[in-house]
């Protein structure tokens, strides 16, 4: 029996909402700070507001991010370049509950480009998972950077209708203490509705 014919023996456990009461269990002190003082690469801040379809901020959502380090390495054994990783202290995962105004905030580094399907190269991006009361399952999107020349040929951005691409490209905000700030709002709404991905 080949692996293709081998039936899945176990049905997947379904998603359920994280609900409104996760705060004592899931977020942790420093969960939104991915960098220490000696991390290599360009430190950045990623912020954004989570807004419902009525335009109201969502204060009880949770955002997770996953990203490569400044060199484009994922801290994971399935990255074929895993053995070469120099920045062992940078994990690339963060978790942040939204505040009363619906904002999330991460301190991280600007990720490097990573390989994409075939011979393609993916522009620097941060994967985002959005959870909350009223979200029966996680919604997935990405934050790209407004100044990256690689965006043009990015294989994932190429799957989005051109009018909606802007919803996954963060905007450059005024730097704080010399650290660049990028903002990506997450919206369930009209013309500015964020593109969410089925992965």
């Amino acid at each position: 029996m080949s692996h293709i014919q081998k039936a899945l023996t176990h049905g997947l456990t379904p998603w359920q909402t994280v609900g409104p009461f996760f705060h004592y269990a899931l977020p942790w002190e420093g969960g939104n700070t991915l960098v220490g003082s000696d991390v290599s690469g360009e430190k950045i801040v990623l912020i954004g507001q989570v807004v419902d379809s009525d335009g109201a901020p969502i204060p009880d959502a949770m955002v997770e991010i996953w990203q490569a380090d400044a060199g484009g390495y994922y801290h994971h054994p399935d990255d074929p370049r895993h053995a070469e990783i120099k920045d062992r202290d940078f994990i690339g995962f963060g978790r942040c509950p939204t505040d009363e105004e619906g904002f999330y905030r991460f301190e991280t580094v600007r990720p490097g480009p990573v390989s994409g399907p075939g011979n393609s190269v993916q522009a620097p991006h941060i994967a985002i998972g959005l959870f909350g009361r009223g979200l029966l399952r996680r919604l997935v999107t990405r934050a790209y950077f407004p100044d990256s020349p690689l965006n043009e040929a990015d294989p994932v951005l190429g799957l989005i209708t051109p009018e909606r691409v802007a919803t996954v490209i963060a905007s450059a905000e005024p730097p704080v203490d010399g650290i660049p700030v990028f903002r990506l709002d997450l919206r369930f709404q009209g013309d500015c509705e964020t593109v969410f991905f089925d992965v």
Partner: protein
Amino acid sequence: MDVLPYTRQILSEPPSLYPAYTSTVSRSPRQPLVTIPQTLTEVTGPMAFGDRLFRPPVHDMTRQGKGEPLGERIIVSGRILDDRGRPVPSTVVEIWQCNAAGRYIHKKDQHDAPLDPNFTGQGRITTDEEGRYRFITIKPGAYPWRNHHNAWRPAHIHFSLLGRGFATRLITQMYFPGDPLIDIDPIACAVPPEARQRMVSRFDIDTTESGWALGYVYDIVLRGRNETPMENVK
């Protein structure tokens, strides 16, 4: 670079918009999801970082206060597997729940039921090499919510799993066998009946400890990855 993708979660996933659960109406996308291939970004993910990621482990949730929490002590254990039945070792399992009276320690929980000073209702551990986990806790109560008239959540424990990659992330809820509230609960019912049953734990006399606590078994199945090309040879 092409990667081996994880199974896509199709039939067992609830929709984002399920109007019987009223909060989904303003909190769901109007546009369809854009399907993308799983890339290196999605097949990698946070795994096995232990203490660096999370607060210290808590497996016995009845030992966090000065005294024993009130309610029915239970053991909740099981395995984290992938859809081919392979264990998911060293993965973080985080759980949270209300107390026996149906109240969360949370400033926004307005339910008029007593708090228990000896119970915070949160635990986290990593699975062993066979994907096993085990918690000691208190059976949570049902609680009312404002979704519709006379709305009550069935007793449940919230579970959060990371798995091996970004694509395997799962947050779910464990229910208890025989609970009549399950089939009238809009959150559970957003999942089709066959898959809904996968969220119901089973009572297990073998993990029940004599004179001490009932045992419930709850196995969780995460998206699995296609087998590697190496295993495909022969």
